[in-house]
């Protein structure tokens, strides 16, 4: 019998092989995770644990394995970001305004995972409506990163609460990244509108891919900015990322922006290598004040790819610096429209008022947090009469230029682009954005261009900084060519060596 801690330390690929070989059962694997989650409540990664459902699903998986009918993810315990609607299980989007909303339907992504045999451990914490880069805007409180700075005073106190100033896991998929890094699931679903998969993955030493816009169905996933939102996995290895994305992706008649393309065998792509590929290094990502450590890591990443046979070329994406300001017009504009549905009438929180408008205004004031209100109001302003052309139309024109930059680079034969994933390693709770929201927004400076252009991007852990915290590199690909990202990501993972994740100091 394999010790329980080892079961939670398996990769998805290893667990799949072990289940197939009947070295352990899906029930044992799930029970090990249920126990780990219980001991890690101080991290606040899960907003809802569903152990009974998990064990029932594991039992069904064991029966299917016994009958030789195992699916691609049979018996694999996963955490689900609370942005995905799950039938009969409360889904909150990290907001008070959804109250005890219990969807009578299942999102396409989670439906695909269950169809392939995966097991749901529970719902993961996140920034409210996925608006944030630190998981501090969640109505359920912040997530504690399993990572600590070297020599930090953070510890689990006698009461089980965290003591000391802890680090954020990034956001908005902070619960997903923390749970994967802390071995509280084998993989997690996440979503990315401006960097919400890749930035938390980089902060926690995990792998996160945002697929091409249209690769994964958005049906049943709570909408933030519909032209930018895309779901993807957070996992501990590149191979696991490929395995999980293959199950999450599918054509979907219920989402008109989801493409009718067959989903490739992404796992087969990881062994392709990068020989003969042209990898671009965009000089425009060399921003003022970039830390020498990030700069050094970026250079190292290019060297690893070169050593593996890729040709490294300098490229230019001249509109890069305008991506973030354009995003802070487009995303709030779409959010203000999408979030108009939370009106206190059809579901969620309701505060009674003297008339219908008063009811709307009071319900929304009580239900939304500060960051969400701020973004709805910015969006309302930029779409309002007299400002629409000056802000919204101009931002959409910038988006055309940002996308054109990428198209010109790819037209010159470049297969993928290498950049840092974030401008720094993880920061402390309460350290950023309390006075000026823009300070927090700058976290997404390297990731947001990818959403604006609808391209795929993967963050892969590549090293530790002087404080002992993980740093990630990002690879940006051509539309619908996630396979090249998995191939190049695997080279980085092999060259850097797998990051040693933190011991369970919280348990």
């Amino acid at each position, binding site marked *: 019998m394999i010790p329980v801690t080892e079961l939670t330390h398996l990769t998805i690929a290893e667990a799949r092989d072990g289940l197939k070989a009947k070295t352990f059962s899906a029930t044992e694997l799930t029970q090990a995770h249920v126990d780990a989650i219980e001991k890690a409540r101080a991290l606040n990664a899960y907003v809802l644990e569903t152990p009974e459902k998990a064990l029932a699903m594991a039992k069904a998986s064991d029966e299917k394995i016994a009958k030789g009918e195992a699916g691609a993810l049979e018996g694999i315990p996963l955490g689900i970001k609370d942005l995905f609607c799950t039938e009969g299980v409360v889904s909150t989007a990290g907001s008070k305004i959804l109250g*005890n*909303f*219990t969807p*009578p339907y299942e999102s396409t992504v989670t439906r695909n995972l269950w169809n392939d045999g995966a097991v749901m451990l529970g719902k993961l914490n996140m920034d409210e409506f996925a608006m944030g880069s630190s998981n501090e805007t969640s109505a359920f409180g912040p997530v504690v990163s399993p990572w600590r700075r070297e020599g930090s005073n953070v510890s689990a106190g006698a009461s089980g609460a965290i003591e000391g100033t802890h680090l954020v896991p990034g956001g908005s998929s902070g619960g997903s990244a923390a749970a994967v890094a802390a071995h509280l699931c084998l993989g997690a679903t996440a979503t990315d509108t401006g960097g919400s998969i890749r930035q938390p993955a980089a902060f926690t030493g995990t792998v996160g891919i945002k697929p*091409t*816009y249209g690769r994964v169905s958005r049906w049943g996933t709570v909408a933030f900015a519909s032209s*930018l939102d895309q779901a993807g996995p957070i996992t501990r290895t590149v191979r696991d990322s490929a395995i999980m994305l293959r199950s999450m992706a599918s054509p979907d*008649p219920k989402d*008109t922006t989801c*493409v*009718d393309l067959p989903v490739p065998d992404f796992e087969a792509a990881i062994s392709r290598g990068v020989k003969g590929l042209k990898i671009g290094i965009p000089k425009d990502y060399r921003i003022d004040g970039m830390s020498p450590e990030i700069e050094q890591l970026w250079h190292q990443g290019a060297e690893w790819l070169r050593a593996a046979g890729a040709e490294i070329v300098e490229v230019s994406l001249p*509109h890069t610096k*305008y991506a973030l*300001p354009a995003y*802070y*017009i487009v995303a709030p504009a779409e959010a*203000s429209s999408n979030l108009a549905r939370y*009106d206190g*009438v*059809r*579901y*969620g*929180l*309701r505060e*009674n*008022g*003297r*008339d*219908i*408008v*008063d009811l709307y*205004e009071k319900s*929304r*004031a009580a239900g*939304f947090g500060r960051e969400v*209100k*701020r973004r*709805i*109001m*910015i969006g*309302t*302003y930029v779409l*309002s009469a007299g*400002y629409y052309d000056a*802000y919204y*139309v*101009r931002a*959409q*024109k*910038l*988006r*055309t*230029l940002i996308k054109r930059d990428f198209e010109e680079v790819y037209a010159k034969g470049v297969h993928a682009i290498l950049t840092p994933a974030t401008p720094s390693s993880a920061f402390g709770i309460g350290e950023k954005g309390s006075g*000026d*929201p*823009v300070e927090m*927004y700058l976290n997404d400076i390297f990731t947001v261009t990818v959403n*604006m*252009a609808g391209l795929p991007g993967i963050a892969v852990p590549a090293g530790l900084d002087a404080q002992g915290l993980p740093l990630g590199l990002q690879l940006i690909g051509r*539309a619908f060519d996630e396979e090249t990202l998995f191939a190049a990501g695997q080279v980085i993972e092999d060259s850097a060596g797998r990051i040693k994740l933190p011991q369970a100091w919280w348990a």
Partner: protein
Amino acid sequence: MSVDEKTVRRIAHLARIAVTDEEVPHLQGELNAILDFVEQLNEVNVEGVEPMTSVTPMVMKKRQDGVTDGGYPEKIVQNAPATEDSFFLVPKVVE
């Protein structure tokens, strides 16, 4: 461009979010910080550039215009704060 307190209250009303007198100056500061930040877009010459309407080149999927779903009003209203006979209840709207 920047917003004054009156504009903040007008935006809040358009967005159907009640704001208190104490919140208005904070919101004004935060909104102006964001508007300052996006100001740099004015540096770019966007003359003749088409605004983006679809990020991936694809043809919109279409289906037969027919009823494919429905017939479960109890599911539709099951999460509503106030209902009566499969209807959503709201305060009186028309006098």
